[in-house]
């Protein structure tokens, strides 16, 4: 077991190293000189060199690469061309904002989705509940999340005017946790959160349903039924066993959500890390774009590692080799 963990850790580190390298060269091979962005002030050649040095863009590509990797190890992502401060300082608040919609969205989506999935899975085969459940889930799954977002925005914000559809409110001097623990923030949070929840319901529903349908034919279900318990409890037995793949699916799903809710953040102008990535690409602010991309990759690698380790812990049939 310990050897397995160690091997997976080393593998993950190698993956992170390769992804970082690919990312570095991807950004540097493209022709872009950030100093041109600040040229309007009539910059002298000396001042330009100073700026290039400040951003780590001097020397050969190889020197830049070694310097960049060295800085990464110490947690230095370089300075933002646009904000003129360390990329990490720029990104940090955005990450928290993203987590506010990603984590509750994923969890609520998983709970509601798998609950519905249990119902659909336990419904009579070929019946109305099953057919409409599957059809609805597939249609919602086929709706791009920005389309869902636009619809929510049009109905609940523009038309009914119930909730604001822009940004996350003005904290007005509130600091620390109090920035988030107020009614205004919650009011702004509702719509983007709903968009993320809707995004997750169908996938969970269909996964859970397949699990329950497969479990229905197992012998242990017959045994439970033979004990004379209520049909609801029998369904629970089938559902509980279908949760194992769901639990391990959650980790990678969270990582993909953080990376995938870019469009939701754009629709609702939610100041998250995904929206910042798009803005950074448009502004050619590569240190920030690189840092955001790096963080998302790290999260995916760590999530996959966590999923593998949890799975091997939960399912005794998994063999480590």
């Amino acid at each position, binding site marked *: 077991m310990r050897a397995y963990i160690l091997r997976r850790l080393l593998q993950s580190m190698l993956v992170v190293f390769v*992804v970082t390298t690919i990312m570095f060269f991807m950004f540097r091979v493209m022709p872009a000189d950030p100093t041109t962005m600040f040229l309007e002030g009539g910059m002298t050649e000396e001042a330009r060199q100073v700026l290039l040095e400040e951003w780590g863009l001097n020397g050969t590509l190889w020197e830049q690469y070694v310097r960049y990797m060295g800085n990464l190890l110490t947690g230095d992502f370089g300075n933002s061309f646009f904000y003129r401060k360390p990329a990490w300082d720029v990104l940090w608040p955005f990450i928290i904002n993203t987590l506010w919609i990603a984590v509750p969205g994923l969890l609520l989506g998983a709970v509601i989705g798998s609950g519905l999935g249990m119902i659909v899975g336990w419904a009579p085969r*070929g019946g109305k509940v099953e057919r409409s459940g599957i059809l609805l889930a597939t249609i919602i799954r*086929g709706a791009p999340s*920005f389309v869902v977002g636009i619809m929510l925005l049009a109905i609940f914000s523009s038309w009914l005017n119930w909730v604001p559809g822009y940004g996350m409110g003005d904290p007005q001097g509130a600091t620390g946790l109090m920035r988030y623990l107020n009614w205004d923030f919650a009011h702004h949070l509702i719509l983007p959160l709903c968009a993320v929840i809707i995004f997750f319901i169908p996938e969970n529903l269909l996964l859970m349903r397949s699990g329950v349908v497969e479990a229905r034919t197992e012998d242990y279900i017959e045994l439970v039924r033979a004990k004379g318990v209520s049909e609801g409890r029998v369904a629970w037995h089938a559902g509980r066993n279908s949760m194992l793949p769901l639990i391990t699916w959650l980790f990678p799903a969270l*990582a993909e959500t953080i990376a*995938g809710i870019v469009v939701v953040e754009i*629709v609702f102008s939610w100041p998250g890390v*995904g929206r910042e990535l798009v803005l950074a690409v448009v502004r050619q602010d590569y240190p920030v774009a690189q840092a955001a991309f790096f963080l998302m990759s790290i999260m995916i690698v760590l999530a996959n590692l966590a999923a593998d380790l949890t799975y091997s812990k939960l399912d005794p049939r998994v063999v480590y080799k």
Partner: protein
Amino acid sequence: MSQSEMYRAPRGLRFLAPMLSTFRLLLRDRFAFWGLTIFALFILVAMIAPWIAPYDPFAPMMTESGRLIRLAPPSAEHWLGTTAFGNDVFSQLVMGSRVALRVGLVAAIAVGFISTLVGVISGYFGGIIDDILMRMTDVALSIPTLPFAIVAVGLLGPSIDNIILVITLLFWRNGARIIRSVVLTERERVFVKWARAAGASHLHIILRHILPNILRVVFLWVTMSVAFAVLTEASLSFLGLGDPSITSWGQMLNTAFASGALRTAWWWVAPPSLMLITLISSLYLIGRAYEEQTNPRLRERT
């Protein structure tokens, strides 16, 4: 869909027999039937789009007195109204189907080809080749999908070919994994061992015995890839990273959203949204039915 049914196919079509039998299997499922019908309709519309679209999608519509028709609601001349820039929404919608299907089909075929190549080589030969290819796949699987697409298209420049390239680079990885695992089981089949014992070459075994039996999984993955590709293209266009010279559904929503017409111009927002949902769902319906029919534990008992 027994072996005998497979071999009854005419000689020239023998290789396609698994595809045909899959197709027959899909038609039996009501959802898949509708999915296939809708998808076929989309392809038809895309093919004859220039003849359906009444106007040039980027041409500004003028009244007789020479004024721009901005944000006009649906009428007899403009079935789905006009945009804030005076473009005909219906023409944009019809022409948009071409981009969606072009990106979807070209990228999906490229994805299918690469994932089959990697999956078959990795699964069939095993050993160090398998190790190298699968570590490459691991790296590719750790790349966040949409952020990579945003950064890559942002760096390469927003053209339709670059979007197709980026989608292909993204989605071969999952397909390669799935196809490899199928090849791993096919490789151990008795007829493969016999063929090997009889001295058949690797190429012969792969083409004659492995490929026909994994074609269904490839077909499923290509179907799903069309959906992913359409979705990715629409997302990129919505984010303003689409090809500016061609009208697409994502781009329509982007301009509608950016011009703040969300509240008033439902005729501009709803049609492209519905088109995207219908096209992607129809592909998912096909994919789902396929999974249901091939997994004996999920199949409905009749």
